[in-house]
């Protein structure tokens, strides 16, 4: 924020007034010690050159003092961490969907779809929880895409995953999530269109037919 010279003069005057009682020589505010530190910072002559100390970086202590960056532990997770975690989980989900091929003709195929579904759910939960206290939603679009894929399994949507073309399309989407640094809103929107084109249900609008699915919906 820029401080105007009038404001600075007013502040200086107020400080001077407040310190009026303390008139020991060392504490007095002189024009050279005005609040405009940049102009009044002492010059240090080094081998004939003049360095303005206001432009030098603060000296860091290498003792066992506290390091400022470590205090970030209590804050929201970093976007780099969340992106890496999303890539890792989505790669696992993608591999799990590829492996469904072995069971595509099995009558109890639904059982095998639980693994990718569970990975997708845990990815949504992790990203959602992690950003609960964050001011910015770094992974909001990723969550949106993952929710679309999760919903495509619900209401007997899992049956469509017997089809190789469906698995291939979903794997391609998950591979994007497993490789990109940032997931855009456009990508989330395109995914929705793509899932509708495949006659999948990216948004569950009706009541879930399967009681178990209702429980797990996060």
């Amino acid at each position, binding site marked *: 924020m820029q401080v105007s010279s009038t404001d600075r003069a007013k502040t200086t005057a107020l400080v001077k007034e407040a310190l009026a009682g303390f008139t020991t020589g060392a504490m007095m505010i002189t024009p050279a010690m005005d609040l405009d530190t940049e102009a009044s910072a002492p010059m240090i002559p080094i081998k004939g050159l003049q360095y303005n100390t206001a432009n030098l970086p603060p000296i860091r202590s290498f003792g066992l003092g506290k390091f400022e960056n470590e205090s970030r532990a209590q804050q929201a997770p970093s976007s780099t*961490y969340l992106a*890496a975690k999303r890539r890792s989980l989505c790669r696992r989900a993608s591999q799990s969907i590829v492996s469904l091929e072995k069971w595509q003709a099995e009558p109890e195929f639904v059982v095998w779809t639980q693994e990718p579904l569970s990975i997708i759910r845990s990815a949504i939960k992790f990203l959602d929880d992690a950003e609960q206290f964050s001011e910015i939603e770094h992974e909001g679009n990723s969550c949106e895409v993952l929710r679309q894929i999760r919903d495509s399994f619900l209401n007997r949507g899992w049956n469509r995953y017997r089809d190789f073309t469906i698995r291939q399309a979903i794997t391609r989407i998950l591979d994007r999530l497993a490789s990109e640094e940032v997931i855009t809103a456009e990508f989330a929107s395109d995914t929705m269109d793509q899932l509708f084109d495949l006659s999948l249900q990216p948004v569950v609008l009706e009541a879930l037919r399967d009681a178990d699915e209702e429980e797990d919906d996060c």
Partner: protein
Amino acid sequence: MSQPYDQYSMAFFAADFPTDFGNKLPACAAAFNAKFKPDDLQFRPSTTYTFQWWKQRKLAILQNVPGTRIGYQTLGLDVWRNNLQEFVEYTNLVAGELAAEECKRIGFKTIAFLPQTMTHEEMSDLFFGTFLSSVDTWRNICESPNDPIVQLNGTIDGMKLVLNVTPSTIEQTLTSVTSQGNFDKFVKSHVSDSTAIDFARRVTVNSAFMVDLDLYKDATPTSGVAEFFDASLNATDKIIASCKNTFLSKAQ
């Protein structure tokens, strides 16, 4: 080709000769000093000679440990990359003076501190599921595993390798850097020359993903040192890139 981690790395090279050339060492050191004109030379007669170039972030060390060894140490992989030919010349001169035809072992070691914007806790978590199996598989050994370190021994491009990767806090990085042997010898005085301190400051701005890589070969002819320099530098770049991609779950 320069890499973003060049300024965040320390590099070491050592060639160990099979025999002790003890009595030839002073003459070899004198020849080295005369030809390459370092800014300063510290020595313990007949055991260790340390050649120093102020502000150039490099050292050459000739010593009997026992067995004779020539070693180089740089603050920054860029120093190594930009002066590769010089280091070849140093080695050739020493091998020539000592009339050594074979090295018992040659090794190139890099310690890179790749700065991260993550906390140490987050970095530790990423190790599980990438370098290590999922955190749940370790819970029967330890309730809440943290601060992992992974060591891998193997081979690459005809060289043996010892690789260590670990997340490093600012304090751990600082300890690693300042506890390296000869760290104080890169400058004449820390008061008048901030070269070493600047390096320590640079690598301790953030927590880091630390890659400690040792590439080495046994029984190598001294004429093969230049080739080893190239091969080890290429392998170092390849391994650091792969480690970083694995750590961040990026496609290889």
